[in-house]
């Protein structure tokens, strides 16, 4: 059934046990992004060392999709080069927008969010942390 395609076990697992949650020092930039239609908020920090994403830390309120996607983002990005990270963001965004097939090699657990593409009202939830990350990375001077 459709609902189970949306709420995959990977998503519920990340939601119940978020990875990398909490705001940490040091960081190069911090941003706050909000979803004005539902009031979801995320504060996200990016720490870049040289050309590498050394940490992504975050705190926020939101639904399972937005919280789980922040957790997956943290897992995927830490240790990547900024260039790689931006390419992952692009792949994830394309998939959520229904413009590309899920590619597990690139976005790992992010493929669990492929079902979101069928729910236009939830696309913003899935992308909230990712857009915040993109914004913060640019501000951190990492690109």
């Amino acid at each position, binding site marked *: 059934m459709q609902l189970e395609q949306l709420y995959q076990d990977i998503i519920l697992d990340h939601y119940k046990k978020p990875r990398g949650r909490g705001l940490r020092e040091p960081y190069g930039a911090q941003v706050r992004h909000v979803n004005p239609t*539902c009031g979801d908020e995320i504060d996200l920090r990016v720490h870049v060392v040289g050309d590498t994403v050394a940490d992504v830390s975050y705190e926020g309120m939101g*639904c399972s*999709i937005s919280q789980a996607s922040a957790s997956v983002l943290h897992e995927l990005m830490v240790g990547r080069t900024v260039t790689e990270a931006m390419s992952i963001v692009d792949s994830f965004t394309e998939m959520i927008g229904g413009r590309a097939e899920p590619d597990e090699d690139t976005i790992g657990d992010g493929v669990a969010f492929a079902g979101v593409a069928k729910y236009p009202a939830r696309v913003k939830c899935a992308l909230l942390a990712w857009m915040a990350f993109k914004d913060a990375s640019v501000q951190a001077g990492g690109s």
Partner: protein
Amino acid sequence: MTASPTVIPPGMPQYDVPALDVDKVRADFPILDREVNGHRLVYLDSGNTSQKPRQVLDVMREHFELHNGNVARSVHTLGTEATAAYEGARQKVAAFIGAPSADEVVFTKNATEAINLVAYSFLNATVGGGDPRFRLGPGDEIVVSEMEHHSNIVPWQLLCERTGATLRWFGITDQFRLDESTLDELVNERTRLVSLVLASNILGTVNATSRIRQRVREVGALFMLDASQAVPHRPVNVVDYDVDFLAFTGHKMCGPTGIGVLYGRRELLEAMPPFLGGGSMIETVRMTGSTYMPPPARFEAGTPPIVEAVGLGAAVDYLSGLGMDSIAWYEKQLTVYALEALASVPGLRIFGPHMAVGRGGTISFDLDGVHPHDVGQVLDAQGVQVRVGHHCARPVCARFGVPAMTRVSLYLYNTTEDIDVLVRGLEKVRGVFS
């Protein structure tokens, strides 16, 4: 589990009004026959927008098919018929809210525009040296409440920023009522306008206005009600409420979108400067300046939403035919049932009065910390349509310490069976996220 049906003892006032035949009502709403995600549609989002009965749809179709012409400017037959239909709708709306004259009913795009029209009257009078009742400056105060929809907050914030006036507000008590304990200080000789929500779109609270209105009169301020969530559900009479302005919208009361209403007392509308400029609102236009029509035409620039107004008139006929007293009592019984049923759901916390007294059929809640988006998604998979989020009343969410709420809003076509389906759906939500 399901709550037992509430039995109302004989002798209660609802026996004075005809009982609503909900099966007959439901047969008037074609959309209720459709399925959503393989389930019977259970529409619990009428506070957002109501569904439309066939009677309204038929009148609008017939207007386009037989009477379509522009209003207030044509000598031909179609134009005359269209004008008669448009002005006829104004008279129906005026009668529906007990307005002494149809000239006190201004058609707008929605309730938001109706409120903005009043806010801009203050701004325009302030800038243009208009009637002193509408001129504002530093030291003047506008009063709203923490319970307002954003549409009764933001226009006043903008007005105060632009004029130097101060915006103040009533708080909300822990019992989800307006906090009137500060009334005498809050509404004072500096107060120029008090604008309050009559029925909250999020808490369901129906505000008692007489004490506040009395104080407003004492200090010589103006009094406005946002009745968007009240007019569709209960009898609202502008003389009984003794308001200067009243705003509401068509699409929440079985009418179409794109049509709202501002009721204004004649002497005030006459003192207000024009709002939007253009055709229909003018008397004479010269290149050096223009003169303007009296109200309501002064505030209806351009071709108005004609068929939408006609549709609203049909909605008023439909509701009046059933009887607003009957609708109000039916919804009250349904609200009693819903409050009992929701109280039986483990981990569910209602934000709003827990008794069906001084409240309408709008019930917001939190379920065990499961985010409302997720609640709404799982319910939707079972055909149940509820609203989730901050409901354009973010200060209310902040007041009660939650980012969002799930909201059920009942209307005349809902049944106890709808509420049973909702309660079963909430059990499913708990199953997914526990």
